[in-house]
Structure formats: structure tokens, C-alpha cells
């Protein structure tokens, strides 16, 4: 196994828990939410970016704490809900689960590798969209169709953007 493979599999042994300043934990999700709220108005194509989700995935992966991950997801989701027209809790539940599972994954594999990040982001984006669709139908009774092809394409797009965003956020980590 080459060096890259070793890094992937032994990530939990090194137990690299990334730490962030409080203001980073506060302002980055806030900026992501504001980005999603305001920027799609002048630039509609940016509406396809799920920046709050990407931030949730990033912090959950890097914190490597399931409780921390689920709380990050819950808070970002609830904040996103508060600015949406849907009942408060819809994004909260979905992002709570994303944060929990992302942190669980972060505990087991090394998430520093860009390809791993790409795959994980793509997977969690798809998981997020499916779960939201299920909740909308189950809890709200909304008869909406699930566009699987569009979701896959957008998942890939968000995954690519996510790798870049993660690279930027890596610079905000506190040095070990």
C-alpha cells in the first residue's frame, strides 16, 4: 500500500482533531447561510450551491466528534430553516444527521485527502437531498418529484466546489 493509502486508513489512529477559533465556527456558517440567501438573487446559478451543507460536512469531518458534528449540523440547519419558508426543523433534522454521520466517517478515515473529500461531499450531498425529499413527503405531505439525474450532477458540482472550499477552510484551522 502506498503512502496515500496509508494516510487514508490510519487517519483515526493519528486522531487528528482540527481546532478552530470560536469566531471561525461562528462566522463561517453565518457567511455560508448569508451567501446562500443573498447571492442567488443577483446570480441565480449560485442557488445550486449548498454552502451551509458544505460547511457542515467540513466541520463535522474535521472535528471528528459525533456530538459536535450533530450540533453543528443542527445549528446550521435551524439557522437555514429560520430563513426559509419551510417549517423550522426540516433542514435541522437533515443536517443533524449529515453532521453526525460525517463525524462518524471522520473518526474512521483520513479526511485530509482531496479525493476522499470529493467522494464524501458528493455522497453527503446526495444523502442530504434524499433525506430532505423523504421528510418533505412524509412530514409535510408535499408531493414533489425527486430528480435523481439533476441531484447527481449537482452533487458532483457541489463536491468540486466543496473541495475548494475545504482547502480554503483548512487555512483557518488553528495550528496543532
Amino acid at each position, binding site marked *: 500500500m502506498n503512502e496515500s493509502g496509508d494516510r487514508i486508513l490510519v487517519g483515526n489512529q493519528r486522531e487528528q482533531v482540527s481546532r478552530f477559533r470560536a469566531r471561525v465556527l461562528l462566522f463561517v456558517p453565518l457567511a455560508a447561510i448569508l451567501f446562500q440567501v443573498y447571492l442567488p438573487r443577483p446570480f441565480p446559478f449560485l442557488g445550486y450551491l449548498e454552502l451551509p451543507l458544505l460547511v457542515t460536512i467540513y466541520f463535522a469531518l474535521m472535528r471528528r466528534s*459525533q*456530538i459536535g458534528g*450533530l*450540533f453543528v449540523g*443542527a445549528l446550521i440547519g*435551524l439557522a437555514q430553516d429560520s430563513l426559509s419558508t419551510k*417549517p*423550522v*426543523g*426540516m433542514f*435541522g*433534522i437533515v443536517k*443533524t*444527521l449529515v453532521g*453526525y454521520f460525517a463525524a462518524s466517517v471522520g473518526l474512521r478515515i483520513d479526511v485530509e485527502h482531496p479525493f476522499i473529500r470529493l467522494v464524501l461531499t458528493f455522497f453527503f450531498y446526495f444523502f442530504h437531498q434524499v433525506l430532505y425529499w423523504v421528510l418533505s413527503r412524509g*412530514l*409535510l*405531505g408535499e408531493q414533489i418529484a425527486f430528480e435523481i439525474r439533476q441531484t447527481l450532477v449537482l452533487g458532483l458540482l457541489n463536491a468540486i466546489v466543496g473541495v475548494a472550499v475545504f482547502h480554503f477552510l483548512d487555512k483557518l484551522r488553528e495550528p496543532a
Partner: protein
Amino acid sequence: METLLHRHRDKTVLVLVIFAQLVLIAVQVRNDQDVRMIRVWSVTAITPLARVLETLRGGGVGFFRNYIRVQDAREENRRLQAELDRLKMENRFLKTELSTADRAKALVAFQQRYQPKSVAARVIATGAGANSKVVFVDRGSGSGVEKGMPVVTPDGIVGKVIAAYPTASEVMLVTDPEFAAGVVSQKNHIAGTLKGEGGANCKVEYVASEEKIEVGDWFYTSGDDRVFPRGFPVGVVRSVRSASPYKEILVEPKGLEHGLEAVLIMLEGLHQVIPEASPPNAPVYLAPPPPPGPGEQAVQPSGPAGTDADRLRQRYQQLGDAQGHKFGEGLPGSKPPDFNLKLPAGAAGQTPKPTQGAEGASGQAGEPANSPAAAPQKKTTPRTGDEHAVDKPANGAARSRPLAGSQSAPSPPQ
């Protein structure tokens, strides 16, 4: 337990956070019947338990009663009660709406239009609260029940559905203070609004003080509230007090009279005709007169005179009989009877009724039986309060006629 929670702390926290957010959503979201999802979920979670408890209770009681005490009698009673309920409904339907229609057609209409549009339900729980006048029944939106549907029994209305859950429905009883329904009295068709009082009785409001409502009057649904179909019995008036500007009318609801166990939820309303009240001077049965004793003459009963027109008609009839005149016969221009003929005072206002036997006994075709020629044997028996002469032909058939008229009837029949 504590160790278990500590060991799975992350999963416990996850479940709690998810559950909290689910509750948050449930508080905000309402279903298509405008009921909060948290209530839907609560009732859906509780009612199966209530149903199981009710089934266990009913099963236990049923076992005790059926197998130890009166097994056959209870089964028979249950069957007969169901049959009675069905017959009551059928009878009411036939009596009211379809009184003018053919009976077979009415029955077909009842079965086709009425029964499939109602669903039988069992009361499984009562609402929380000391003064609650709300019950839960074991039929919900899964059975087609919707908010606002009327709930009835064969005896009368029970209430209306205020919330429909998947497995149960919440029914507000007529005695609930928030209940209201449009009603109309049976006798004089006076409209009012039925409202619950929180007790055993209801009140009918907005009936003007000059309207005539009496104790014992029935109230029926008017159909104006668009909830209850017209013509369903509501209850009977127990007390009426005059007040200004509206009467204070207390009504005993009949739908709750025999307790609440099984009810019908009307999935689709079917208006009926409010049955007419019995007239106050309804005809009563009168036994036939006693047979004449030895040496007595049979007297035909004379009907009581009704209106002035009736009395005038009877007088003309007597005048015609006295003069051997038959009204409706004779050519135009023929001599009419003398309407100024003096009749004896007691004969006025009485209705002489010719007897068929007397006609035959006269033996003279075309000649009135009461003409002097037709009454060869005549016995006059003065009777108190009934001034009639009784002609007794040879065969014993009796016939009454006015006294004076028969004496002065010179003109032949025309």
C-alpha cells in the same frame, strides 16, 4: 441504564436532537384538515392504546357476562339492539322524507343513498378535562371521516367531528358549550340555534319571546348550519321561560339519552323532511254504540257539527230530506226545496244518516224512505238532547229523521 446511555451517548444525543426537531416541526405544521401534526401524532399514538384497553375491557366484561352469566341473552340483546337501531333509522326515514313516496322505492332509496354514506363508530375514549364534552371514536380519516361531519344515533344527533385523525376522530358532543347547530321546532317550525351548556341539557337560543314553544315540543335540525342534514331529531323541550328579547328554552338531547357506545358518522348529509306535528284535535277512537236493549230503538250516532259551513250544509240537507228533495238531481228550473221551512229546534245542526237497510225496506224504488208513504209504521221516541224520530220499518232497520220535516214534506222528489 445510566451506563448504557453513557456508552451510547452520541446516539442518545442524536435521537434527542432529532426528536426535539420533530416536535418543533409537529408544532408548526398542520395537516390538510387544519390540525396540528403534533396532535395528529399524539392521537395516533394514543388511540391504538385506548383501543386495546377498550377491547380488553370490553373483552373482559364480555367474557364475564357472556360465558358466566347470560351468554345467549347478551348476544341476542346485542343483535336485537342493532336490529332495533337499524329499524329506527329506517322507520324515521320512511316516516319523514318519504311519506309521500312509494314504500318500496323509499326503502331502496334509503339503502342506496343513506346507509353507504354513514359509518358506524364506537366510542373509545373521552377527552381530557373534567368538564370535557368531547369523545373519541374509533373511526378516522382512514375511514373517510372528515372534520365537521355530523355524528348521530337513531335517537338523535350526538355531535360533530372536530378533528379527524388517521385511526380515530374527536367528536364534540351537543352538550359542549362550544357546540351550536341550527334547529327548528316540529310544531310551528320556529327556527333557533341549539347550544350546549356543559351539562346534560342544551338550550335553544334566538327564539323570539312572542313565538309559541311549549314543553314537549320536538326540535329537529334545520340544515341551515350546513353540518347536520335537515330533519334529524335533536331533542324535546323540557322548559320554556319567557325573557326579553328571546325565550329561554331548555332542550333534552335525545341522541345522548341511552348513553354513548355506538354512533353513526354521516359521511354525506341527506336532508329529510321534518315530520308534521300531530294536530291537537286528532281523531280519537270511539267505540260503537251499545246494542239496543229490549224495547229500545237503535239510534245512529250523529257526528258533531264542525264549522258554520258544515252546520249550514247540514241544515240544507235536513231541509232537503224533509221535503223529499235530493240535491244534485232535477233539471234546471225545477222547483227548489223551501229553505224557509221551519225545522224543530232540536233537529237543527244534527246530521241524519239514512240507513241502507231502511232504503231497501221501504220497498218503493225512487221514493225516499223517509217520505210519509215509506213510513207506514212510525214510532216516535223523544230522546233527551237528541231530538230525532226513529222510523222502524217492518224488518227492524232503524232510521232517524227530523220530526217536523217528515210531517210537512209535501213535494215529491224531483
